């Protein structure tokens, strides 16, 4: 009898301990040795991060070293996190939202979830790299490019505009990743500059002509392998791969559309402070750091190859300067995520 009781009590205790351990461990697992979101004290800043993790971790490390403020990251994709913020509403625990593209940020802005950014921070970033509304700021930029395989496509055959790609002669000759937020941002630039009808026509052309890949890297790799002649991606994937040996880009070249063509769209990565934040001072400090010289230098000199936008920090060699790219001038707040998704769903790309 005693043995039975002992065994039962031990078993129950073990199970209880295991479940406590389980919930404790999971809730306190964050990036590195930082405390997780549930266990976060009010001092730690909660950042919903849709930018590349490695870059943001570099930023966070330097920020914490400079200011002593702890930062906790929730990593995810542009669309996922922006939709999550909208769904969470006022109950969100996020203090800062960082995106790769402006589409996700303008979705959150339109839902009325952002606080205005400190004017001092806004002054650090030139006007073409932030929205007129002042509700968020640009922290980095990336350019649309057409990556192509010179063995399959001669220079004279290159498209002069991204709109050319809907022509029948481009059938099975180019690829893209419509499921990703990156590509959706590029489509939103087409919508903003050409209007709904033209965009629907272009998307239909894409549905007929393009090979669909899961993301930018898969597209670039396919072009490199000669599976498809060209593809629409963002510039930095090419430069990053090139700098680390060119395994997925060695057989390819980049073509910039320029001429203020929608294909020269420069997408702004955004940073914003959430209205629901309890830590808005620290949040504003973080944004100021990102847009200022320290943050932009980390971006400009680091592994990322994205374009710095503030603090007069130059882009890393061998990137062509942002001004020379002749991007179309678009206020990033005006980009319309839900309409893009509707159009792409209608056409059958999503």
């Amino acid at each position, binding site marked *: 009898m005693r043995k039975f009781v002992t065994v039962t009590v031990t078993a129950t205790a073990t199970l209880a301990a295991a479940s406590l351990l389980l919930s404790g461990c*999971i809730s306190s697992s964050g990036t590195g040795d930082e405390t997780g979101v549930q266990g976060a004290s009010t001092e730690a800043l909660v950042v919903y991060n849709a930018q590349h993790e490695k870059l943001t971790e570099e930023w966070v490390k330097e920020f914490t070293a400079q200011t002593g403020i702890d930062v906790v990251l*929730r990593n995810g994709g542009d*669309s996922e996190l922006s939709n999550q913020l909208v769904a969470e509403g006022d109950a969100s625990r996020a203090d800062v939202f960082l995106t790769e593209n402006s589409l996700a940020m303008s979705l959150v802005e339109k839902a009325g979830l952002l606080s205005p950014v400190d004017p001092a921070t806004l002054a650090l970033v030139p006007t073409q790299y932030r929205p007129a509304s002042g509700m968020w700021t640009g922290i980095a930029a990336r350019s649309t490019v057409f990556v192509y395989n010179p063995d399959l496509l001669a220079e004279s055959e290159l498209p002069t505009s991204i709109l050319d790609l809907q022509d029948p002669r481009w059938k099975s000759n180019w690829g893209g990743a419509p*499921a990703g937020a990156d590509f959706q941002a590029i489509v939103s630039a087409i919508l903003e500059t050409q209007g709904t009808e033209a965009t629907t026509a272009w998307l239909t052309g894409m549905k007929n002509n393009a090979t669909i890949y899961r993301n930018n890297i898969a597209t670039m790799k396919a072009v490199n392998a000669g599976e498809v002649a060209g593809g629409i991606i963002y510039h930095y994937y090419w430069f990053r791969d090139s700098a680390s040996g060119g395994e997925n880009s060695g057989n390819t070249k980049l073509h910039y559309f320029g001429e203020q063509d929608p294909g020269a769209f420069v997408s702004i990565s955004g940073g914003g402070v959430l209205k629901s934040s309890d830590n808005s001072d620290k949040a504003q400090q973080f944004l100021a750091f990102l847009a200022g010289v320290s943050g932009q230098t980390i971006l400009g000199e680091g592994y990322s190859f994205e374009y710095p936008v503030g603090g007069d920090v130059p882009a890393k060699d061998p990137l062509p300067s942002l001004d020379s790219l002749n991007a179309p001038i678009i206020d990033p707040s005006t980009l319309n995520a839900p309409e893009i998704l509707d159009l792409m*769903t209608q056409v059958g790309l999503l």
Partner: protein
Amino acid sequence: MTPPPSRALLIIVVVLAIGMLVPVGYVIEATARIGIDELATLLLRPRVGELLGNTALILVLGVPITVVLGVGSAWVVERTDLPGRRFFAVLSVAPLAIPAFVSSYGWASVIPSIQGLGGGLLVATLAYYPLVYLPALATLRGLNPSLEESARSLGLKEGAILFRVVIPQLRLAILGGGLIVALHLLAEYGAFAFIRFDTFTTAIVVAYQSTFAGPSAASLGIVLALLSVIVLGVEATARGRARYAYVGSSSARPAQLVTLGKFTPLAILALVAVATLATVVPMASVIRWSLATKPEMLDGLWRALIDTSLLSLGGAIGAIVVALPVAWLATRHPSRLSRVLEGGYSIASSLPAIIVALALVTVTLNVAPGLYQTAATVTAAYVIIFLPRALVTLRAGLAQVPESLEEAARALGTPPLLARMRVTTPLLFPAIAAAGALVALGAANELTATLLLAPTGTRTLATQFWSAASSIDYPGAAPYAISLVLLSVPAVALLFAQTRGKKP
């Protein structure tokens, strides 16, 4: 006449059933919320037609192929005099140890242009044929050979005996295995996404990533749920009134082995070819890439191992806690009510993992925000998805524990509950352990639901593998692939031992 179940037991089972039916509830609620008009707009478009076509094709083509491979392997291994039979018996189960998404990553690195229906069929049939092979093997071992002997004595050739006598007796195994393969094909995400074969499940994940748990994702989910119900219906109709035996019976005497004679090299070649394609090609890829792995790529591995172990342990404990009452009810107090309740548990588990994940996201966001994106939600998902494994194992274990022992204890004066705990429960420990192991190992490989539900900063082996493979970082993904395969081996060994008739 079995005694009626206690009220407490019934209440527990019903309450748990309600929890298990959350995914079904979500599908119904989403249909009502979105409304028929908008559903029609969302669904009656060419893209959905494409998805439907792809999904239907992979089912209609994939299931028969797996049946042929599975039954063929089982027959050759069990009923012929093939040299090295026992080696091939084990080899034929090996593909189960490699998760389908690892297999597709392996194939994509060998043939980068693999894609579409052909690619999907190749990867999926090779990954899933063991799911037909195992039940076919178990049934073959248990068949009474007298029917075959009569046929032989009446002059039928071996080939005719195979098709006219043996295979009809395998009907239940084929239907059961085929059903499981069909449900896996419907639910598969990683393998198909990697090689760009679009099905409903891959489209739902894409819709989720772009629009969160909005009407777009939900509408596709409704169709997927309908397809699952149709598959279940087809199987139930084909099965008729026959029931699957939970406890295998052994045959009176071993069957006479068929002499392969001049077909021996052909048979060996066929088995080796299938095994090579299913196991060797993916694993060789994984190992090749792991040789290129740099030490810094192993950074997250330890953390992922811990998180994976904790989450799957939680899932295992949860699944046992949920499965025990209904297993008890079904075994000790079988009745129409217990069958209905058991059926309720099974329906939710037949729904693809993506639906379970979508349901839990929606429910937690709207009803219990504190639980949203926590370990509890992931654990709940694992419990719902993997319950059948626990249920089947526990039922088999319970069926083997005679009630008379407990009755004897009660007759000797022990209070009923104490008798149950002291006598029956210890005898159940092996079944409980086996059930826990199967659930935990399934949960460790789970990708789809974990992608949607994992809390911030929690990385499992599967999600880390997926994020590396998606960035075409093959060497970075390889260590995770190897860990996943190593983790699966014990579960496969367990399944194989169960098939062989050994006690779990």
